[in-house]
């Protein structure tokens, strides 16, 4: 509430400075007014998928990528999501310079496509995973889940652990999923 009011008041200050109030300069809002849902102070609720990633020292690269692609607010939302979360080591397996390249502004679309390939809208719990099951990801491409002797893989990537989130489920994986 406070930052929102501040922005509002600063806005009024600008009007007071003789800025024309009828121009079209006031363009669409680029950044969330008031900080965005991901900045809401709430240490009580079960963490959402973003907080799980933020709280994990093994996922700093993924978090940097989500922030770069402006996905933190969407993934803090109601969802529900199934997120396949590659570890830092998984990103390290990519050819040298790949991650740095993806984080550049000109790679925004490519980065989005990769991140969206890691997200499914809906909660697929471990017990619902069937061998050979496909999920149509947010980028519209399918991933294939396999389950052998209780061990789950996604497009061949190993699931290292599973974390339940307030707005979905996170499968921690050892390889970055690359769309075709």
């Amino acid at each position, binding site marked *: 509430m406070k930052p929102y009011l501040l922005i509002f008041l600063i806005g009024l200050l*600008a009007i*007071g400075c003789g800025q024309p109030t009828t121009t079209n300069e*006031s363009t*669409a809002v680029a950044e969330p007014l008031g900080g965005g849902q991901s900045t809401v102070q709430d240490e009580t609720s079960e963490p959402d998928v973003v907080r799980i990633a933020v709280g994990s020292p093994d996922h700093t690269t993924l978090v940097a990528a989500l922030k770069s692609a402006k996905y933190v607010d*969407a993934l803090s939302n*109601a969802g529900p999501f199934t997120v396949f979360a590659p570890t830092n080591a998984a990103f390290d397996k990519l050819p040298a310079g790949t991650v740095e390249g993806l984080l550049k502004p000109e790679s925004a679309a490519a980065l989005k496509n990769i991140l969206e390939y890691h997200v499914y809208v809906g909660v697929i719990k471990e017990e619902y995973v069937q061998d050979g099951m496909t999920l149509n990801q*947010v980028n519209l491409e399918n991933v294939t889940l396999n389950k052998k002797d209780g061990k789950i893989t996604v497009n061949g990537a190993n699931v290292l652990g599973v974390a339940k989130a307030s707005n979905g489920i996170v499968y921690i994986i050892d390889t970055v999923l690359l769309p075709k």
Partner: protein
Amino acid sequence: MKTKIIYRILSALVVLSSLVVWQGCKPKAPGSVTMGDAANKAFVPPGKYDEFYNIVSGGFNGQIGVYGIPSGRLFKILPVFSVFPESGYGYSEETKPMLNTSHGFVPWDDLHHIALSTTKGEHDGRWAFANANNTPRVARVSMKTFRTEEILEIPNSGGNHSSPFITENTEYLVAGTRFSIPMGNKDVPISSYKENFKGSISFIKVNPSDGKMNIAFQLRTPGFNYDLSRAGKGPSHGWFFFSCYNTEQAYTLLEVNASQKDKDFIMAVNWKKAEEYIAQGKGRIEKAKYAHNVYDESTHSATSTMQQEVTVLDVMEFPDIVYFIPCPKSPHGCDVDPSGEYIVGSGKLAAMMPVFSFTKIQKAIANKDYEGDFSGIPVIKYESALHGEVKKPGLGPLHTEFDDKGNAYTSMFVSSEIVKWNVKTLEVLDRVPTYYSIGHLSVPGGPTAKPHGKYVIAYNKITKDRYLPTGPELTQSAQIYDISGDKMQLILDFPTTGEPHYAEAIPASMVSPNSLKIYKLEENKHPYAAIGEGQAKVVRKGNEVHVSMTAIRSHLTPDNIEGVRMGDVVYFHLTNLEQDWDVPHGFAVKGNAGNAEILVMPGETQTLKWTPDEVGVIPFYCTDFCSALHQEMSGYIRVSPAGSNTPLKFSTGVIEDSNAGK
């Protein structure tokens, strides 16, 4: 209350802004770009009217909220499917029948969608229709009285979600079942879904002169879920389009099992053809039981009639009524553009939106360009029906509204944004964030052939970083965006009552001149009305005591009543004798268990039932602050023990005791 708060904030901001002007110039801060002239655009000065009415569904409160645009001020909470103690709706004897159903009195429902009546595809400002999602019903609300005038129950429906969308001249409104069910109350295993479960789409005829509704016919359709719909218009008039999901026909864990297929369907219905079959007597009359409740403005009373049959057309027997068009991933919104040529399917799990062409659909049907059939109904080839796809518009596309310049505005639930795109070129033109989880959105006139444009209003579910916390649940909200320029601009947030689903906005000039001011006393045909204080009376009929009472500033007649006994049931029939706009009188009696107050409009009669539960002298009073002497507007009713012979008498202004005035 909330309106007042908004009002105070706005006034405070005006004061602040003028102070700031006086402080002179300071360096431009980063925030200045984001809000710009927004406050000016949403500000309606005190004493000025809003430009649009916004008729907003209240979701699980079963009501409609009436707001002003662009101020976001709340004008009225209008009860439809839920009782409303504030006005006595569902509590007064006259309004109780409105909530009658085949299951008995149902005091609540879940109201999702609004349809404002249209003539030639354009708003005509006569009625608002609304759906009850839970116990399937549709309602008609008068835009003259802002009251619910009619409620019609829908038989053979498992939940009325794809409703109450209307045809371009309000010939029909539809009611499609959200859940398929075994028809005719069959006792069958749930696992026999594929074999036994069917859908139904009711076509409800609307009488053009008085708006009265009746189910003209019902289409029996394949068993899956029917979500939303829109009628064709212009060239596609005569057709209706429904989004369908769970074509997997799952009956458990739908969140996984109903998301298996890459494509579900848009169902195109040729309702003119169905009408022809009905006219030829090809419909099958089936037994059914459903309530039809009508409020009569002259008797100020509702009646509930139980209907016994419905005419059914099984689309499997008449395959040229219905066609399926594949549509990706559980389509939710199914919206037709103002020209009537383009149908937008919004797969809520898809990151693209197909736009279908009515011309191409017709060509595909003529050429039998089918990829197969589903339950014997032809499935048109996706590519043959497709105008084109909007690629990666955002995450979780739900609903689309249109402006008057060929643009579409689609809400994105998952990515919380509105995306503006061109209907013909399918190019994404602009996007703005919403805060958060937008469901429906509304452009004034957006679903009609003649959108009024100017604003798009977002209806949001989650407001965690926007509003002061109020415990575990925060308010839902709406946000207004100016769409008059190339770029959408957020100009105002305002909280909403209940949970807003769909809403429509209409120019105030099409509604406000017709707004009813008073009910004329000489037209009051209520059987217990007292048209003048001389007609006030108390009549005993067995153990019923009928009080025909009047109210006028600032007394009730009679205000002294004696001779009521324990075991009696008292009916206070209150006639408001005022013939002056906006002077309702309220009435309540102490300890009226299970009941509320009544709020009686000028010239109207309403009845409050009361069963005394203790001997004594019980006060009653006017509850609506009506004048400087409102506090004096009260009276007493004496309740004697059962079997006592206290004579029945009533009066106002009669002073009987010898000590009066001393």
